[in-house]
């Protein structure tokens, strides 16, 4: 079955979302959003500490612990993971996997060592890339700040050889834009490596999920805006999931972070951005109707 994985970008105490790894806006608290997605049928969650690689440390332990006591689906933690000790701490806090980008580029042996100690199943190689002007794909590190000159396709294969059990592919240029995934590159990687590939960056409507699964051969799909803004703004029943106040688009505590203005003004003036928000049940029904095997939405009542 193809997995649908909401991705929570986290900065300080908040879930944020930006465009092309920049201009992050606050959306809510990590544990509140995680619980909504769990109830709505997310197959896994990714927690991404957005500033961690810049500060060289991951600060999500507290949220992972809090979330792990309430939700019981796999959780992957990304951002600023630099050592076997970091990984051990994050797994102990309740995460199932860690996704590593910057530190693995600086020290590829980290993937190997980590896979030997914890098993490949919990080591995800996170590959964040830009398409180059020559039609190639280049790995960038440090939360989309640092070009490396490394070919993303070659790195994907090498990361698997080193011990990565999954590949998380994120197009930086498509992040937050809603113009669809990089289907070609996803397909190229997914067909070349023996481990699952998670496609990320660019989800703007449910049809995008279908194409990256059907044509892109993605084993799983991660997305953020398309879900976050659905649960923040959808009318009717879905509203009940959030203690959401139009003047203060943040769950839990009161903060006005300008998200509503951002939405009302057509995504802050980015006129070329079109995100058709979709809820998890609606997306899964759609994929199911299109013949994509997905996890059903019925679950036992507690």
């Amino acid at each position, binding site marked *: *079955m193809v997995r649908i994985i909401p991705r929570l970008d986290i900065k300080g105490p908040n879930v944020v979302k930006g465009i092309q790894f920049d201009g992050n806006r606050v959306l809510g608290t990590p544990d509140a959003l995680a619980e909504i997605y769990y109830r709505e049928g997310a197959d896994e969650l990714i927690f991404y500490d957005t500033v961690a690689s810049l500060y060289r440390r991951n600060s999500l332990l507290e949220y992972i612990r809090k979330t*792990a006591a309430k939700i019981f689906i*796999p959780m992957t933690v990304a951002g600023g993971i630099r050592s076997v000790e970091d990984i051990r701490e994050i797994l102990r806090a309740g995460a199932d996997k860690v996704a590593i980008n910057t530190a693995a580029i600086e020290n590829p042996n980290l993937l190997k060592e980590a896979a030997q100690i914890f098993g490949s*199943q919990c080591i995800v190689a996170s590959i964040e890339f830009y398409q180059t002007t020559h039609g190639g794909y280049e790995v960038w590190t440090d939360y989309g700040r640092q070009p490396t000159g490394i070919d993303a396709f070659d790195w994907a294969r090498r990361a698997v050889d080193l011990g990565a059990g999954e590949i998380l592919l994120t197009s930086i240029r498509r992040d937050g834009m809603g113009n669809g995934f990089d289907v070609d590159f996803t397909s190229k990687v997914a067909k070349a490596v023996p481990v699952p590939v998670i496609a990320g960056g660019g989800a703007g409507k449910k049809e995008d999920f279908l194409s990256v699964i059907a044509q892109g051969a993605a084993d799983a799909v991660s997305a953020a805006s398309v879900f976050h803004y659905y649960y923040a703004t959808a009318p009717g029943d879905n509203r009940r999931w959030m203690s959401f106040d139009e003047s203060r688009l943040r769950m839990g505590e009161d903060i006005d972070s300008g998200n509503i203005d951002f939405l009302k003004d057509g995504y802050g003036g980015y006129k070329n951005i079109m995100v058709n928000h979709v809820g998890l049940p609606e997306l899964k029904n759609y994929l199911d109707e299109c013949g994509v095997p997905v996890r*059903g939405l019925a*679950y*036992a009542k507690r």
Partner: protein
Amino acid sequence: MPNAKSPDAVIIDYGVGNLFNVQRALDLLGASSVISGKPEDILSAKKLILPGVGAFEAGMRYLNERGLVSAIRKRAAEGCPVLGICLGMQLLMTHSEEGGSHDGLNLIAGKVRRFQAPNNGQSYKIPQIGWNRLTLASKGGNWRDTLLNGLDEAPCMYFVHSYCVYPESAQAWLAQTEYGQDRFCSVLLQDNIQGCQFHPERSGEMGLRILKNFISKK
């Protein structure tokens, strides 16, 4: 034997895997548990959970070195309910072909074999990572009064594995799952010995129901 102070379950610590999420799930369900690698805790357990992620050989070696193999076998023979999860389920078997050829706890007669590699034109990945369906393993059977009591038909669970369990006795197959070219035993049940190839502690509300069934069954 258990005494008044014994927790509801002992989660066996054998140096691999994430034991804490199993314990967190039990906490949520209101069941007391300890994580322990001591033979005396195993011998006095009300219920035993053998979790696990990792390699078969390393798991068995650790259990042997700590004297846990005989403790688990003894307590199981006394009728203590045992639940193996993922690698823990595989360790219950006679034998595994992972990384050579290795003996298991032999609480259930049967083998552990790797998924068949995709043929030309097939595109599934090994390990299987993700959700998959459980179905009834035998015609006319049912899940009443078992680990799977109260679950929907064909529930989805979260799997992470390259090797699969094949009990010899057809009666020990409580549920089966298909992946690639294989149909394997995803839940086994033989007397007091039970196992899940998937992670109930990672399978949402359906998975929690399985743990609840295990804990609440007399």
